[in-house]
């Protein structure tokens, strides 16, 4: 479904990656600085690779040789950033509706209630992001990405900025996300435990390259936290 074959120089560091992923949750698993976020940004269209191709469901999103580069606002990939990046000037409700409005989707109350209920954020609707806790913020960020009805969801270490108890708070929501929505996901993490709970496939990355592609067996013997 998603086919990525890209190269990108970032100063001294280079990302040269090739992998394919099917539906379900594909974990990009590797230590900090292994190029995971750069790779996700290339998939999202926020940075352009130097060489290579990115395809999704048979559609070319990026092709250096053919000079194709679909801009992020036409890829329709939901992106949950490590730091949430909610719009500080908008209420939670307006944040949630932002993607739906930009993509010109009809207001769908049932969908809104389903997502808001799944993430348990209904009571936050009128608040501004500045007043939310870290965990609440990430849940709203997930909801915002879901409500644009993405064809693929990119989650870049959505738990990394949270402490242990907040992580435990979010994890069940991510599992429900996987089991109830059916949206394919790319999940970036350096935590073996997170990946083990969520992922259906694993792309193991090391210093900008794909070291291995496979199932959860790739986690066997990996330290619990690769950043340590």
């Amino acid at each position, binding site marked *: 479904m998603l086919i990525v074959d890209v190269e990108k120089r970032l100063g001294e560091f280079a990302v040269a990656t090739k992998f394919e992923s099917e539906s379900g949750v594909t974990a990009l698993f590797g230590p900090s600085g292994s190029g995971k976020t750069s790779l996700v940004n290339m998939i999202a269209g926020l940075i352009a690779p130097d060489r290579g191709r990115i395809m999704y469901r048979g559609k070319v999103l990026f092709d250096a040789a053919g000079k194709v580069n679909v801009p992020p606002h*036409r890829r329709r990939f939901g992106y949950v950033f490590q730091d949430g*990046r909610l719009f*500080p000037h908008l209420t939670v409700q307006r944040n949630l509706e932002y993607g739906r409005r*930009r993509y010109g989707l009809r207001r769908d109350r049932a969908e809104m209630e389903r997502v808001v209920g799944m993430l348990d954020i209904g009571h936050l609707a009128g608040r501004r992001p*500045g*007043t939310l806790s870290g965990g609440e913020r990430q849940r709203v960020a997930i909801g*915002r*990405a879901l409500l*644009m009805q993405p064809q693929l969801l990119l989650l870049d270490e959505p738990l990394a900025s949270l402490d242990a108890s907040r992580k435990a708070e979010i994890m069940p929501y991510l599992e429900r996300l996987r089991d109830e929505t059916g949206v394919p996901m790319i999940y970036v993490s350096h935590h073996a435990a997170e990946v083990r709970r969520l992922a259906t496939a694993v792309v193991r990355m090391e210093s900008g390259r794909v070291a291995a592609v496979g199932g959860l067996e790739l986690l066997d013997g990996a330290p619990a936290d690769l950043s340590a």
Partner: protein
Amino acid sequence: MTLLDLTPDEWVAVRLSLRIAAWATIVSLPFGIAIAYVLARKAFWGKALLDGLVHLPLVLPPVVTGYLLLISFGRRGPIGAFLADQLGIVFSFRWTGAALACGVMAFPLLVRAVRLSIEAIDRRLEDAAATLGANRGLTFLTVTLPLALPGVIAGMVLAFAKALGEFGATITFVSNIPGETQTISAAIYTYTQVPGGDAPALRLVIVAVVIALAALVVSEWFARRAGTRLHGG
């Protein structure tokens, strides 16, 4: 309050000043925001030149700026002649010319304030908007501009205050014609040049102070409101 009993002529100068400053601020606002955005976000050949050009009125003697406006936007100046013939817009010795002079003089202040506030915005929020389906124009309108609003307001107030007090460039470009180009500043200057002009000059000085204070208070209120909107509450 007899001190503030303005004569009809003085009222004319006050109203004219407000009108000129308001037009100068409002008309230059879209240009100011556009140039501030370009200077804050784009890298291009000639950027230093554009930056210098925008700031020129801040460092040039106002009389020089006024004279440059006179020879380019005057009736026989290349731009002035074109605008008069093609669009019927005349600047020389009209209040519109005073507004142009004030707008040019205030422009660097406007651009600076807006540019700083745009530079302070986390660009990653714009990336987030892009992944949520906003093209560049919509990203600017729904994220960048609202977040820059406190700076835009501050810039407008600075520009308005500058326009209200502008003297040198205005008097050089469009002279000092009561009822057409004689602003508060020009009127005060005129009164100080004639015997017995102290009282009317002082009345206008008080008006100028009141207007300036009111502008500051209003802008402070707006900026605080925008600030609380951004940082929770």
